[in-house]
């Protein structure tokens, strides 16, 4: 077995007296598609925010490719190779779809160059076009992101996350608010992406991830209740009780 890409060691996150995550540990293998599932209020979003660098954990350590990344600022997570798509669509609204992806791709090439014209960096523009093509937005490249439909904005977010050439892609409910058709397209895209890199999904709708994930982790009351293959999770009586029982 290869060394894990992401290791979560005894992570806790408290907000005042409320314990959102209580001493959770998990490790994720490279090149796999894993999903964190759980009922509402289980701590999924907190888990996502901790592993994606938005919140520093109250206790515990986070290791990415063997390096300790606990407490690094958000932009360092991205620079290390962890990209994320937010639960609430977060794009640069007034900028064109193309510029959204281009600026995301630019991170690897240049951040503080003040005089060089960015027009000269044609490889970034080409890469942005290729990524827009991949997520099905090639026809909308010049439109401001704000003018895109909800599903298209979510696809744009995925293109932006990919633009930074991540080793690990984290996605928080990537199909939230999508129509069934859009959901289908997104799930196909995620499956294709997982063939190239490690992907961790946080998802509320269990049915959605059962078919495509190799490994599921079930969060409940801020702790991992179970983990395993979809078949094992389906057979787990604890999971049935807390999760499937609710429909």
């Amino acid at each position, binding site marked *: 077995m290869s060394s894990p890409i992401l290791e979560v060691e005894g992570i806790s996150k408290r907000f005042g007296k409320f314990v959102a995550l209580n001493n959770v540990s998990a490790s994720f293998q490279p090149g796999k598609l894993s999903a964190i599932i759980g009922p509402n209020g289980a701590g999924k979003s907190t888990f996502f925010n901790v592993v994606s660098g938005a919140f520093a954990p109250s206790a515990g350590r986070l290791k990415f490719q063997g390096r300790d990344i606990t407490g690094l600022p958000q932009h360092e997570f991205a620079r290390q190779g962890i990209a994320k798509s937010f639960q609430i669509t977060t794009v640069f609204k007034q900028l064109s779809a193309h510029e959204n992806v281009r600026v995301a791709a630019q991170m690897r090439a240049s951040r503080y*160059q003040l005089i060089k014209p*960015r027009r000269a960096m044609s490889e970034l523009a080409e890469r942005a076009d290729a990524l827009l093509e991949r997520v099905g937005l090639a026809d909308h490249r010049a439109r401001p992101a704000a003018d895109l439909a909800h599903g298209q904005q979510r696809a744009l977010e995925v293109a932006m996350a990919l633009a930074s050439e991540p080793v690990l892609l984290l996605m928080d409910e990537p199909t939230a608010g999508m129509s069934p058709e859009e959901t289908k397209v997104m799930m196909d895209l995620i499956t294709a992406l997982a063939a190239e890199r490690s992907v961790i999904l946080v998802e509320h709708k269990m049915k959605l991830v059962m078919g495509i994930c190799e490994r599921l982790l079930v969060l409940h009351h801020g702790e991992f209740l179970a983990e395993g293959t979809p078949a094992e999770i389906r057979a787990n009586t604890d999971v049935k009780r807390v999760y499937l029982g609710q429909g």
Partner: protein
Amino acid sequence: MNGLVALIRRHRVAAVVLFLLVFPLLMPYHALAVNILIFGLFAVGFNLLFGYTGLLSFGHAAFLGVGSYLTGISMVHGGLPWGLALLIGVLAAALAGLLIGYLAIRTRGIYFSMVTLALAQIVYYVFYKAERWTGGENGLRGIQVPVMDVAGFRIDFIDPVSKYYVILVFVAAAMWFVSRLLASPFGAVIEAVRENESRAAACGYDVARTKLLVFVISAAICGLAGGLRALHLSVVPIDSLHYLQSGQAVMMCLLGGMGTFFGPFVGAAVFLTLEDVVTTITRHWMAVVGAVFMFFVLFFPAGIWGTLMKRLDRAAHP
């Protein structure tokens, strides 16, 4: 027509400079043209932070004033040549920008505006109290630019036309720099930060550092405007540091069009020309300028230049 507009857009600095070269001929008198040049640059520097990065500072008078005073002090008390004094003024403004920016970027929204306002007021009182250096309430007097001889041309600051063109050289250089900055990779990052900070951070950009860098550059440009103003007026009035100057930068930007390259300049020109014309009619010029300002904010929120650009865009791509 469309071809012309596209050409102007591609060479925006050249177009601006060309316009500014003939500008004094269009104005009723030259001192007003010089004033517009200086406050145009001040508004452009402010717009970098306000229009492009989305940070509303209410303290930019501090940078105009520090640039003015340090240029003046270097000449009057230090006996330095004006070029070096101007450089010191710009560096001092940048340093003030670093200090104020460092403290202010920790806050957001209205708190950011208030922190910049409060810190700028501290700067005001420091210069007000340091009477021995700054002349206090009377302002700093006695800034003289000697007659120069450049390649056979006699340049005398007493002559407003010569003065205008000397100042234009600096303003044009600063405009070129701002234009390059906006077209650079960093220019893309600052717009990303304006649009969405958490997404910019998730894209791998250090938001705090980006904001601080823009803040310092913006302060330096406003400091240059201040230094040029000291050379222009031969004195530094204490009201250079007054918060009304900060407010003027906001008004000029909004009037001309925030987040557009030339908008702040247009805003400064309209504001100062209005002030100049209306003061000859009534003492209550502020009321008239205020009414015009409100009219534009309510009906043309993109500003004069911003609205014009939008119209041209629509005409080009119906």
